[in-house]
């Protein structure tokens, strides 16, 4: 693997270094080394002499990763993740040039919310487990393997959780964090008994669309709260994607915060070089500086909204406007 810019990599996760400083260094590296991103900028009419703020920098649409991993010149992938999807769909591929950076991004943010050595992780991620290249499975497996107690692990819906295992978790006096895909949690609540006498935190990872019955995030949170008899402040969400190194968490609510090396903005769908006002829906844009060795400037196809505090909510897929056919039939102003 070629030499990176060592200084940037060293302070990438350091909260004492300003985001702007890290952003400028990473942009500089990307412009020099990432042919795809540089060509994208040039085709938009920008050159090296143009400078951008995190609010205005052009973001490359995530579908770029459907053509294969994006790596800076001279870099190769140690790991490759692929998105899930039907066989007819083109899947995204994300090449990870340095696994240790991926691990650092995972652990820095996760342990800032759920301190290391104080939690045991159970993961309920059916379907994802069928995808050996799932970034979510890799992330959760990394956290499970990192638990020195050895009590963390994957659980299955069609196999009741071993009572002895639960007793050991209770005896450890640690908090139990249940990582669950939305559809997995719904099936679990339909099929199994809740854990008894546990200090439980639930992290849902999304994935409602694949379930036979859709329910809103609020419904899901209410159902989890009632079923496990835990307050909603103990129900969290995780937002990540195959194309990112980093994950974001919504702690006790539906509003996500980003780690210090990530900046999320809501971009206007018709002009992604502009941010939406707080409260205005748009496409979720992510600058993930941990994507130093792939592409850190990404425009997702997710619909989101920012609040005045800079936290964001994920509202689903962006499928509103600009559609062909008769989708403008009902003018929104007449509803």
């Amino acid at each position, binding site marked *: 693997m070629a030499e990176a810019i060592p200084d940037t990599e060293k302070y990438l996760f350091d909260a004492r270094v300003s985001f702007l400083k890290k952003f400028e260094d990473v942009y500089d590296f990307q412009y020099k080394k990432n042919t795809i991103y540089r060509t994208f900028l040039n085709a938009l009419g920008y050159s090296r002499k143009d400078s951008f703020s995190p609010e205005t920098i052009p973001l490359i649409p995530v579908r770029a990763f459907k053509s294969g991993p994006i790596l800076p010149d001279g870099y190769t992938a140690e790991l490759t993740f692929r998105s899930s999807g039907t066989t007819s769909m083109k899947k995204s591929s994300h090449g990870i040039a340095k696994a240790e950076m991926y691990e650092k991004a995972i652990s820095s943010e996760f342990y800032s919310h759920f301190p290391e050595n104080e939690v045991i992780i159970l993961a309920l991620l059916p379907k994802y487990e069928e995808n050996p290249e799932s970034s979510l499975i890799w992330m959760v497996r990394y956290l499970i393997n990192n638990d020195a107690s050895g009590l963390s692990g994957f659980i299955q819906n069609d196999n009741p959780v071993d009572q002895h295992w639960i007793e050991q978790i209770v005896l450890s006096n640690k908090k139990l964090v249940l990582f669950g895909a939305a559809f997995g949690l719904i099936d679990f609540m339909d099929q199994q008994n809740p854990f008894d006498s546990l200090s439980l935190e639930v992290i849902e990872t999304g994935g409602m669309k694949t379930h036979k019955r859709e329910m809103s995030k609020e419904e899901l949170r209410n159902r989890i709260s009632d079923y496990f008899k835990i307050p909603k402040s103990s129900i969290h969400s995780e937002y990540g994607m195959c194309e990112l190194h980093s994950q974001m968490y919504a702690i006790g609510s539906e509003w996500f915060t980003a780690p210090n090396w990530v900046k999320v903005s809501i971009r206007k769908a018709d002009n992604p070089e502009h941010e939406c006002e707080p409260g205005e829906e748009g496409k979720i844009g992510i600058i993930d500086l941990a994507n130093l060795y792939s592409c850190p400037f990404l425009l997702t196809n997710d619909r989101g909204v920012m609040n005045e505090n800079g936290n964001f909510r994920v509202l689903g897929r962006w499928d509103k406007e600009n559609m062909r*056919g008769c989708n403008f039939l009902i003018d929104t102003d007449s509803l």
Partner: protein
Amino acid sequence: MKSADRHMNAINTCISQWLRPDNPQLKLAIERSVDEDLFSFEDIKHQILALKQALTPDKIDRWVVKSGCTPNSLRNKTVMCLHAGNLPLVGLQDFLAVMISGADYTGKLSGKDPYLLPSLIKIFQENSVFQKSVFNTELQSFFNYKVDAWLFSGSKNNGSVVNNILLDNHVVSEDSPSLIRTAFFSAAFIDTFDKETVLDLTEAVFRYGGAGCRSVAIVVSPLNLNDIKCEFTDYVENFWLNNPQHQHPSRELAHRFALNKALGTNQAWLNDFLIEEGEEVPRNKFILTWMKGDFSTFSSVINNNLDGLQSAYSTAAYIGEHAGNKIIEPLSAAQKPPVWWKPDGIDTLNWLQKNLL
């Protein structure tokens, strides 16, 4: 004369009055639509000329015969049409189906096409073809106005939103029949690039800025985009000289072009439109996908996209053939459908009779 014949005569009289070159109401509706920048004059003119060809008495009779419908058989029923406004007069076929059926008409007009269809509805009112008619651009004005069935064209999400609004406001009940059409694009197979084919293809793709479910969004062809793009672009520019594109894409399209360039995807950038080589049906406007492939590729595209596909078109050699589950229609008819064409494969007239009689 039988009641059904009298009814059809009245309908034909209304249509003929409406399409008369000296009809001041239609002229005013066109002027207002153009003045308020709702549609281009050229697109409206194209639509009216296409309707003049399609709405002759013999063709309307043919539709009635094909549909197996008895005109004027739904006298005691009320049908609500929620009209689209993405093209001029796009809801006209639904209106005519309701008129022929004899049902009373309730029309939620689009705020994007508020003048053209009313210029026809008013003539029907003046000629007392129906007992009651209500039409308006505001959905709220229909709340608590009970109808027996409703017709809609839009997305699935939109359809369920509208259904809930109509249910909540007692316009329809749980068991009211609804015809919801969701197709949003059409496809064409092109294996020659002679002048007639390219002219038809240009019209099929670029008319109305590519909007509408009958517009071609994906072309399957054994020809390489790179080999034909210069010639094709000449035809498109000539088309735009005579039919300036009314709507223009946002900056988002430039981002798509830039990404294609970065990824090395073959494309033709026309400023107001993007033609790109690929395999996916574009969901956004102002994009044409050019897919390299033979007729079997075309059949696969049809079968893999049945959910959103309206029509499959090609040139003379293929018309009437099966491509997947679709029968190939003439490319030249993409923007000039016959009055009996079936949106989403369903004859509206037949559907009304089956569900309401």
